[in-house]
């Protein structure tokens, strides 16, 4: 930091700067810009999972008054780059999953667009499809690498021999279902080509304006400078808005037919179940070999997941097992089944969320087998260095999270016997699980600082605030970096007219963008001093290596959960959850707490409710709306508490902070499942934990 004023802004629990705009609803989301003469897009989605479009009859749609254009595979423009087949929209007659775009209508009103889309007659030549993931799927393959770019398989020592000689072996398979992000704001794009057709503007709901610009520019063969993406307000994403999707391309194609007029395209909730990603179902076999005291000698984590045939996404569910606990013998593997299914993608803590559910459930089973307290079992397997790399930890605080969390939760004196506590009709139990999340930094973000006539510092960076509190946090960081009070700093985000910023993903945003702000402030002060003239400006770029190399950097945490299971109906209530985390320095305690709580709520939701059910006969998600895809509601959430250890990570970069957006969902489902086992004695090894599974 350059100079810091007497009262630093970082660390203060500010309320959100955009709070008033949000509570009144006046903050404009992608659909809500007042644009002149908008038109509306009505998409037609495939009703078969595999095959070809043999004929499209657009006559009835075209006859409808108010219809401006009907796009089909036959008449759609040829795109410049369709190597990524997610974006090869209407480029051929091939159908690769049910719910894929096969045609689209542009019309004067949303009602007409929807009616006309329904009047487009699409005939198919249907081929046999395969949408079912099984543990022994005949086409399982090993991906080149898994998400985050790490290897699919690892092995250390001789895990098979170690398992064969282990005094205690836990060998269990855990399953998690297909899950959908379901941000409250549907994925939306409003596309507008200028009259000459040379420039495209997208008002988009995205976690990364610049990444969308690059993707769309590539697909259309445009210079990126000709594509502007505007996204200052984003109604949640949780990963699904972490890249462009096919709807961006379709909206831009449709708008090309009507230059000068904006085309609005908000996906319906139902359409979001096939077009914007989802968490793959997982089948995870965990084998733990330990001595009678629960000290691990071998850990094996074999993961089976699905991907789409047209684009690979490999969720890194087994990666957590590479570093979580000490064990000399270890193996992790990932196998994918390519299916005629939509393309899976990021969903909050991809990899860690399902992976830690399995690992932390298996650890609970091991504790039970060995008769060791589950907190103590984890303490016994604490690795002095990162077992996967041999590197020292920058700030591994799992032990403290477990110990202090146990203290605060009132864990001690817990009777380990399952199914032994009953209050009225309710069986009561408690469970624990560890949490972790890697410290991720995306290099290369740029920030600009300009000193204005209004004697304020105007800071610009194309970052995204998807509800994380990024705008407020960045303002705090910029104020400290400039050594000025908050009132003198104005930050603008969410627009490609601002300097390049990395995606809001991997809990990397505040760290990555904050590093750019710090760099820009240094340059600004170096060039303009402490008393700049109005109009003075400077740019700075986040360094390649924000974090100190040579250290293994992770956030850690511990979840403690009380669960009550109804003895007659199996209904599950969770009256109490405590999450205690270590994330380095916290920039804004108020918004960080909200991130932790939100992650824990989604973890509770994952544990008890969320499940997308695919119809094997037709290949679609049958429960494709919010009435049937259940997420946690107000009545499901009580006694939730999140806190963190004070401190900073000296190796995490100029802010000493690691991300807070995802760790709250990691391990949560295991803690709930472990508490339900403790309450009932019933061990359920697949999510969600529905009441029927507890009835014996």
């Amino acid at each position, binding site marked *: 930091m350059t100079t810091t004023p007497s009262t630093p802004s970082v660390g203060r629990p500010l309320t959100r700067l955009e709070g008033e705009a949000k509570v009144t*609803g006046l903050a404009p989301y992608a659909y*809500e810009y007042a644009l002149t003469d908008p038109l509306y897009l009505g998409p037609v989605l495939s009703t078969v999972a595999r095959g070809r479009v043999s004929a499209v009859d657009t006559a009835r749609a075209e006859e409808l008054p108010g219809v401006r254009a009907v796009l089909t595979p036959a008449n759609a423009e040829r795109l410049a780059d369709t190597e990524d087949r997610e974006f090869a929209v209407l480029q051929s007659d091939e159908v690769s999953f049910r719910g894929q775009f096969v045609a689209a209508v542009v019309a004067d009103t949303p009602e007409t667009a929807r009616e006309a889309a329904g009047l487009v007659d699409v005939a198919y030549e249907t081929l046999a499809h395969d949408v079912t993931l099984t543990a022994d799927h005949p086409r399982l393959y090993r991906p080149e690498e898994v998400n985050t770019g790490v290897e699919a398989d690892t092995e250390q020592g001789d895990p098979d021999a170690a398992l064969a000689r282990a005094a205690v072996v836990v060998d269990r398979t855990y399953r998690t279902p297909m899950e959908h992000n379901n941000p409250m704001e549907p994925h939306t794009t409003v596309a507008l080509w200028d009259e000459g057709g040379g420039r495209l503007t997208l008002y988009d709901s995205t976690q990364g304006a610049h990444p969308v610009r690059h993707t769309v520019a590539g697909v259309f063969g445009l210079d990126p400078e000709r594509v502007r993406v505007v996204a200052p307000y984003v109604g949640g994403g949780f990963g699904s808005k972490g890249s462009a999707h096919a709807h961006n391309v379709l909206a831009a194609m449709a708008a090309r037919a009507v230059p000068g007029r904006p085309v609005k395209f908000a996906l319906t909730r139902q359409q979001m179940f096939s077009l914007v990603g989802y968490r793959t179902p997982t089948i995870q076999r965990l084998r733990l070999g330990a001595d009678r005291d629960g000290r691990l000698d071998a850990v094996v984590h074999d993961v089976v997941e699905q991907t789409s045939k047209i684009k690979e996404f490999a969720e890194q569910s087994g990666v957590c097992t590479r570093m979580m606990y000490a064990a000399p013998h270890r193996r992790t593997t990932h196998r994918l089944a390519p299916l005629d299914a939509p393309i899976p993608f990021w969903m909050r803590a991809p990899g860690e969320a399902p992976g830690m559910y399995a690992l932390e459930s298996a650890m609970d089973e091991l504790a039970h087998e060995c008769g060791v307290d589950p907190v103590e079992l984890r303490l016994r397997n604490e690795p002095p260095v990162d077992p996967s790399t041999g590197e020292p930890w920058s700030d591994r605080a799992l032990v403290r999270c477990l110990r202090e969390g146990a203290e605060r939760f009132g864990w001690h004196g817990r009777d380990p016997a399952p199914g032994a506590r009953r209050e009225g009709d309710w069986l009561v139990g408690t469970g624990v699980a560890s949490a972790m999340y890697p410290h991720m930094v995306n290099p290369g973000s740029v920030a600009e600082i300009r000193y204005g006539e209004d004697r304020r510092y105007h800071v610009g960076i194309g970052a995204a605030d998807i509800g994380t509190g990024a705008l407020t946090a960045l303002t705090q960081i910029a104020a400290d970096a400039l050594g000025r009070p908050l009132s003198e700093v104005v930050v603008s985000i969410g627009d490609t007219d601002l300097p390049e910023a990395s995606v809001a993903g991997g809990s990397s945003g505040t760290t990555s963008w904050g590093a750019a702000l710090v760099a820009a402030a240094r340059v600004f002060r170096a060039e303009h001093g402490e008393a700049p003239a109005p109009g003075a400006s400077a740019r700075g770029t986040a360094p390649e290596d924000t974090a100190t190399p040579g250290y293994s950097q992770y956030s850690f945490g511990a979840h403690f959960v009380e669960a009550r299971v109804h003895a007659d109906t199996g209904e599950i209530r969770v009256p109490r959850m405590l999450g205690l985390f270590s994330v380095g320095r916290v920039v804004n305690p108020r918004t960080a707490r909200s991130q932790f709580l939100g992650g824990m709520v989604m973890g509770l939701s994952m544990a008890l409710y969320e499940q997308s059910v695919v119809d094997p006969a037709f290949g679609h998600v049958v429960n494709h709306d919010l009435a049937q895809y259940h997420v946690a509601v107000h009545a499901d959430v009580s006694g939730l508490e999140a806190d963190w250890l004070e401190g900073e990570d000296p190796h995490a970069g100029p802010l000493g902070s690691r991300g807070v957006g995802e760790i709250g969902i990691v391990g949560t489902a295991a803690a709930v499942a472990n508490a339900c086992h403790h309450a009932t004695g019933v061990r359920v090894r697949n999510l969600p934990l529905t009441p029927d599974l507890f009835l014996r």
Partner: protein
Amino acid sequence: MDATITLRVDGEERRLTVDTRTTLLDALRDRLEATSPKKGCDHGQCGACTVLLDGRRILSCLALAVAHDGADVTTAAGLGSGDGAPGGELHPVARAFVDHDGFQCGYCTPGQVCSAVGMLREAEAGWPSHATADLDAPVSLDDEEIRERMSGNLCRCGAYTNIVAAIREAAR
């Protein structure tokens, strides 16, 4: 088929022509550029589109605009300061949402705020909920009551704990 109707939106009389299939939500968002109420599902399943219709909370995606000719609609943008006059200070419920960080992305928020305002009126009028133990006693809005009565408003960001704290404070 089109029909011309009048709506009073946040205190202002608006005349508009709608397709008879137009929902109240789309009439507000697409015809009147009143985008405070949000569309999360369009099927009455999420609560993002909650507005006050003649003083009561409703899901505007489940109402047809033509069926409400002459109605008075209040969105979160028009709640005013709570004393009946629009503009000026934030409504106490909205203020409490800001203070308690009762939102993250903000997309469910106008619906949550309108729903909370309508819910507080229902409780004051003595309407019971599933969580009400004694149907004869006046409603006392403890956390369980608030959670039960707000459960039609989903928040995918999971701001529930802070929303309940905000409403608890505003209810005092």
